[in-house]
């Protein structure tokens, strides 16, 4: 997933980085094909070049050697609301048919079964980033037809375009899972199957989502991680296996 996500980033792009797998993917991209990637963390580090994999979004290694450190009012107003963020990278406990993300509650808000951490900066990243990439492992629990709570808006119910609601960014264009890549249909915003990992068939992906999954006319094939990507991930970027499993 980390290497598939990394390949979505072009050199020189400005990326708002979330913690966990997005963070690993962004630093892999920077170590391979995108050395000029500009990493912005909500904690205020801009152009960060972390010498160790940051455990948290506010790790001191994000500051050392960065291009700029600013207050969080500047992060959200001068960078994000100003339209300077090209890619937003989000994860979520639940992602639904239209790419809406829930990181707030499972169950009802007032009486949740599971209380999740909440938005952090995710709501505004989903609204303002020029495009959003979502990373989440496939399972029916993680991909319901409809999220319990919209923390970060995707394409809502598909009926009303985001621009009509005043959202500057295009929203989630791709969802990278551990079995396939889904893409938002340009007309409806509905997530459809776009590409498969090696050895995975479409029915396996369908069993991991809670709605009848549409499909691109031609499915892409995702290349497995290269030897270089694996070496960087395992030996350099995440030697302590903070995010990588196995």
């Amino acid at each position: 997933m980390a290497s598939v996500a990394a390949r979505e980033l072009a050199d020189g792009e400005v990326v708002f980085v979330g913690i966990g797998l997005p963070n690993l993917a962004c630093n892999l991209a920077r170590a391979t094909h995108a050395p000029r990637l500009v990493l912005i963390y909500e904690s205020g580090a801009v152009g960060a070049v972390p010498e160790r994999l940051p455990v948290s979004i506010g790790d001191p290694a994000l500051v050392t050697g960065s291009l700029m450190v600013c207050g969080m009012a500047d992060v959200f107003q001068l960078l994000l609301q100003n339209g300077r963020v090209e890619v937003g990278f989000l994860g979520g406990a639940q992602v639904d048919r239209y790419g809406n993300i829930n990181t707030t509650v499972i169950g009802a808000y007032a009486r949740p079964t599971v209380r999740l951490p909440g938005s952090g900066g995710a709501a505004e990243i989903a609204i303002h980033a020029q495009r959003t990439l979502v990373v989440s492992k496939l399972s029916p629990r993680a991909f319901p037809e409809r999220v319990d709570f919209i923390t970060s808006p995707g394409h809502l119910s598909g009926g009303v375009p985001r621009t009509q609601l005043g959202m500057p960014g295009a929203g989630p264009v791709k969802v990278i899972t551990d079995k396939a890549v889904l893409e938002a249909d340009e007309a409806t915003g509905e997530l459809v199957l776009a590409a498969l990992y090696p050895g995975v068939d479409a029915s396996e992906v369908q069993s991991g989502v809670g709605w009848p999954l549409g499909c691109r006319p031609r499915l892409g094939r995702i290349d497995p991680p290269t030897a270089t990507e694996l070496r960087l991930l395992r030996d350099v970027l995440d030697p302590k296996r903070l995010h990588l499993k196995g």
Partner: protein
Amino acid sequence: MSDVSKVMSMRDAVARFVHDGDTVVIEGFTHLICFAAGHEIIRQGRRDLTLCRLTPDLIYDQMIAAGCARKLVFSWAGNPGVGSLHAFRRAVEGKGGPPLEIEEYSHFGMVARFAAGAARLPFWPMRNYMGTDLPAANPRIRHITCPYTGEALATVPALNPDVTVIHAQRADASGNTQIWGLVGVQKEAAFASARVIVVVEELVEEAVIRSDPNRTAVPAMIVDAVVVEPWGAHPSYAQGYYDRDNDFYVAWEAISRDPGGIARYLDEFVHGVPDRASYVEKHPGLTARLHATARYCPGVNYGF
């Protein structure tokens, strides 16, 4: 023109400036979170506090478990890089512990609330929240029509705490305070607050502050107390002084999973010590393990 010294002990600062029922902010985004102040508030048994922070972090989880909080105002309530805040979750999920009212925003919303408070405006406008369920969950997130463009803008109300605690690398005795590394919303939170307690790693002469004025985040005129408390941010960190204790953040997961674990932790490391120096002594090897390596900047020329 040096003011009178505001230097006092943590015990005195909390006794004088933090009262039952107050709206209390201990800010610092991952960096410079003043655990020493939170622990002293727990030791002095403050009650019915409205605790506000973007990320409640372990310190508010501890204060919730200790029964200090009536209400929590926040935007991301997790254990950064690890998972859940279990005292918070138990309270909100109704699984034990004292009841806790919540008022929830996103980070931008909380930042905007402090900005409005600092500027003494009643609210702050922003282009945000369309399509989210947050305004339905929190009716204090509202909208106005822009008088110039007609655009609908989201608004959040000013946050003006009774007392704000910020941790910093250094200050002089009157409270001119310098911070570097991640600066979060400390400046806005301090200016928004009725009272300000500054806690520092080092007390320096006014001349040190004057040698690098761009680094001053908080001027003495808004500061009520200066507390000198080395390692006062542990297990958070202070750039250039000590690293974040990630091992403790991981360990909190197991400590906090059951209320008895938190109670034992508070008994030993909060109620069981009189002050921060004793807390540090209770962690053998801590200072050697986390002491920061040096990375100096070459300095700038302030001449004219």
